[in-house]
């Protein structure tokens, strides 16, 4: 084997172990080295970023963004440009002003109907610890959860494109059937899951005897309502 052969061999060995090749002159073999890189990238599953890397870089960028206060692109315009029609929250009638916020960090939104009424959506006697129950009431799709002995509720509409969410078989997380976004039972998006998700809006709930009641819109719009 010539010196050039050994050099190319070492390059291949590094690439195939998914390691950074060492510093070495490429000589006439830069083309061969590039083909090696490209072939290795075609290895099934070889070329996807790890969730840990994606989340770590997001954290780094977030810190940088906070310090420099750089203007960031408007997600809504990106969505429009990408031809994505459905905006987050559609179907739940939830205010989506929080999505327009600039580089500030808005909190998880709370669904707050203008004309809210407490409406029964579940029974305490059926909501055992660890239970997640879907409800569909007054135009609102939601989950009632008894995760830690306290009852809470979340919107069941994905904040990405408005698909209706489902719980997985374990009942430990909420999945979107459209793009596989995943949410924890507190409504926060799961790190590393499908990209654009903001937290699920919280729906206010209370107990009234055995009834679990959620604060939902009136059954019909109030008189004089015109949008």
């Amino acid at each position: 084997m010539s010196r050039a052969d050994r050099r190319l061999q070492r390059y291949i060995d590094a690439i195939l172990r998914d390691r950074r090749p060492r510093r070495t002159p490429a000589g006439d073999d830069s083309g061969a080295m590039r083909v090696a890189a490209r072939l290795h990238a075609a290895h099934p599953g070889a070329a996807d970023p790890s969730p840990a890397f994606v989340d770590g870089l997001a954290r780094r960028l977030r810190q940088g963004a906070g310090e420099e206060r750089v203007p960031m692109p408007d997600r809504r315009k990106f969505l429009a440009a990408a031809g994505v029609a459905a905006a987050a929250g559609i179907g739940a009638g939830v205010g989506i002003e929080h999505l327009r916020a600039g580089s500030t960090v808005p909190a998880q939104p709370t669904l707050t109907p203008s004309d809210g009424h407490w409406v029964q959506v579940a029974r305490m006697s059926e909501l055992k610890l660890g239970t997640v129950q879907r409800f569909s009431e007054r135009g609102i799709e939601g989950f009632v959860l008894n995760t830690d002995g306290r009852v809470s509720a979340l919107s069941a509409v994905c904040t990405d494109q408005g698909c209706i969410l489902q719980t997985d078989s374990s009942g430990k997380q909420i999945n979107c059937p459209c793009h596989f976004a995943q949410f924890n039972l507190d409504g926060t998006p799961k790190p590393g899951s499908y990209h654009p998700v903001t937290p699920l809006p919280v729906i206010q709930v209370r107990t009234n005897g055995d009834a679990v009641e959620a604060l939902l819109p009136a059954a019909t719009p109030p008189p004089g309502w015109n949008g």
Partner: protein
Amino acid sequence: MTPADGSTPLHVVHAEPQAPDWEAVYREHVGPLYRFVYARTGNRADAEDITSATFVRALPRLHAGVSDAELRAYLRATARTVIADTWRERHGTVLEEIHEESIPNHDVAVESHADVAPLLDRLPGNYRTVLELRFLRGYSVRETAAAMGISVSNAKVMQLRALRRAAQLEPPS
């Protein structure tokens, strides 16, 4: 806001602070960009470093209203610069960009066998086989030699020749 009947809610879950808009943009683009870089570096450490450097450079320069396609093009142009810098620093030569048309449909290009197939198809049978076994199936040199019924030293030399031949078939633009 107070509910209509003046009572207080039983329990409101508080979440982590919500991600700002740019993070959604980042998450949309990080996967495709990473694969773009990976196809040109072939290893995870470089792909991670170069993807990071690209976003760190490019994100502050973005402005509202830029289209998805413009952003993708900008990220790729930035990544190419970083890749070329890395290459020059490490291997001492100027890296010409791989011919763009040779990688049809970039976003999915690097994810399947299908798209290196046209290149492999143009190689003589043994060259094609040795590259498939080594790179796509992840065989060791020894396993490759056994599968092909040749000696280990032959397999070693053959993979180098195959790569060099493939490089001639695939000239940079």
